[in-house]
């Protein structure tokens, strides 16, 4: 049962991990992108649109592995990259307020997701208000072939689809990149002190753009994973829920470190489903348990601000736009 619990917790955690890794990269460049929830919606629906069109054009029975994976993947990446581009153009180039832009982006993104979701549902002529992409989803959900043969070990470590492993690999890579590479060093400098980075010859605007757009693309994959794997290829409007905000909470919980985020995402995921594993728990208590990730996050935020340990603080220029000739 414990193996089953961990398995479900990881499944729940993966979208959060994508989202928080993306947001960490973005925040490390000094951009507080509150548009992440919207971006994750767009990442999900873009993949759905791509695979829907593909399934419709050749028929669900005839789809092939490679295009069935690649088409939604590319659509998702392009969709969320465009969202990141809107955010960057407004906040970096036009120096608009980051909070306002991010919130507007979330409104837009969630609306975009639900609008196209709703339209596709209509097109598909379903009785239930959802789109089902079972054929595509089956490809996405393929696990390692020997996962089922290794008992609890296989269940806990090997029973996930490729996107889940990609999420962990990306988080580890991001962590390595931030700590051990020149690009990571430069990026952290941009978020801490853009004036210093600028004086050191780093193109601040370029770093902000690239970090935010790449971050958005990673976050968008969280949306894709949710539909194609977690929800078995079924898109229904608003089903993604508040996971985007939970991903932002996870960034704080992980004190801006993607490697801690891996553990954090599984923990958050576990808190999301733990009620299924506690006997005789009523529905209302489940809702209270779902509150705990946010409370834990606030506690981390407060402790970090009280201890004033510099390494754990938010990037120093988070939320501010940079203008070189400011006097």
């Amino acid at each position: 049962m414990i193996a089953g619990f961990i398995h479900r917790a990881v499944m729940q955690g993966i979208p959060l991990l994508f989202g928080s890794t993306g947001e960490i990269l973005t925040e490390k460049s000094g951009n507080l992108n509150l548009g992440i929830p919207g971006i994750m919606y767009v990442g999900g629906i873009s993949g759905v649109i791509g695979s829907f069109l593909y399934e419709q054009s050749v028929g669900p029975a005839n789809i092939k592995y490679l295009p069935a994976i690649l088409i939604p993947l590319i659509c998702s990446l392009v969709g969320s990259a465009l969202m990141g581009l809107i955010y960057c153009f407004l906040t970096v180039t036009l120096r608009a307020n980051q909070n306002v832009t991010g919130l507007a982006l979330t409104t837009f993104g969630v609306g975009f997701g639900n609008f196209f979701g709703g339209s596709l549902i209509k097109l598909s002529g379903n009785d239930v208000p959802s789109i089902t992409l079972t054929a595509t989803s089956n490809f996405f959900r393929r696990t390692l072939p020997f996962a089922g043969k290794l008992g609890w070990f296989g269940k806990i470590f090997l029973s996930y689809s490729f996107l889940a492993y990609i999420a962990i690999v990306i988080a580890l890579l991001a962590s390595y990149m931030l700590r051990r590479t020149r690009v990571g060093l430069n990026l952290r400098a941009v978020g801490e002190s853009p004036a210093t980075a600028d004086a050191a010859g780093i193109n601040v605007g370029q770093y902000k753009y690239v970090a935010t757009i790449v971050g958005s693309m990673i976050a968008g994959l969280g949306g894709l994973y949710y539909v194609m794997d977690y929800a078995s290829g079924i898109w229904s409007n608003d089903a993604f829920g508040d996971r985007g905000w939970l991903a932002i909470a996870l960034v704080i919980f992980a004190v801006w470190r993607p490697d801690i985020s891996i553990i954090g995402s599984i923990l958050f995921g576990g808190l999301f489903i733990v009620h299924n594993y506690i006997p005789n728990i009523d529905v209302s208590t489940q809702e209270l348990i779902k509150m705990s990730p946010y409370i834990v996050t606030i506690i981390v935020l407060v402790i970090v601000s009280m201890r004033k340990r510099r390494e754990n603080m938010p990037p120093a220029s988070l939320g501010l736009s940079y203008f070189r000739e400011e006097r």
Partner: protein
Amino acid sequence: MHQKTKHVREPLFHIVKRDAIPNWQSIMIRVIAVALALLVNGIVILAVTGENPINLYITMFDGAIGTSRRFWSLMQNIAILLCLSLAVTPAFSMRFWNIGAEGQALIGGFATAFMMIRFGESLPTAVLIPVLLIVSMLAGAIWGVIPAIFKALWNTNETLFTLMMNYIAIQLVSYFTYVFSVPKGSGQIGIINRSSRAGWLPIVNGNSYLVNILIVAVLTILVYIYLRFSKHGYEIEVVGQSEDTARYIGLDVRKVIIRTMLLSGAICGLAGFLLVSGTDHTITRDTVAGRGFTAIVVSWMAHFNPFYMILTSFLICFLEKGAVEIATVYGLNDSFSDIITGVIIFFIIGSEFFINYAVKRNHARGEVQA
């Protein structure tokens, strides 16, 4: 290295901060922004529906104000959004990023619902309504002041703190909707005091929204007066503009932060009261429905001026209603309005750049060495 320099030219443009531009110019820039946004939206709608854009805008008007019922429903929506925008404004004027209006309003609404359920039968409505008002504002104020205390004492990031408080509020309300659900276990509270109407705001002149609208109208004036004419409002302005000046005149910045967030939270709580007692007569986790976030954009676009907020909240609500109508008529879904609103907001916040900065072309001087 020095070979390369011959090809280096001056940057073509550079950006400088503007001092100030005349009012008419800044209004023009915004009008152009809205016009461009409507144009882009027109193209989007055209692409989706294939219908003549002019007709579509006529449909929008029809949807927003076509009938008396629609008109009043629009007014009601504006009232709630405006109330929330007014609530976040004192905090924003102080440069305190309260993005927790959503949660503060929901908690206020929940407090109202709770009192309606508990005391709906024991207290007469004349007593109950003032009690609801006070309790809801108190609840919102508490929800708002928690992050403020941490900000004042340890400089804890208020944007992230208030954001998290939203979801705690949502889960808390979720919890209680199960606890109080009718019938038990359904997860829905349903209309509270359906038959007795205890704790419902009264229907005036046959219009159930009028009281809401009047309360918010009065509130708009009060907030304007508070910010513009009271000593508190003046202190908020000074703290927001320059911490050095606040120090120079001996202001206690912590006190101002805490006091202002108490107020900001209390007004959010009031919005929650209006939603539960004046509109929905029930509570769900989605009662505020993202309006706490939209309010931030509304307040920002209005430059924190309560009267401009009437305009910006009207714009947002009108578009929303209009787009919903288009969606209905052309068989699209309601979320279409979020896309339309999103585009408008992007253009308006983007246009601020051209008010604050000037893009200057460099002279041809650089050509000499090319």
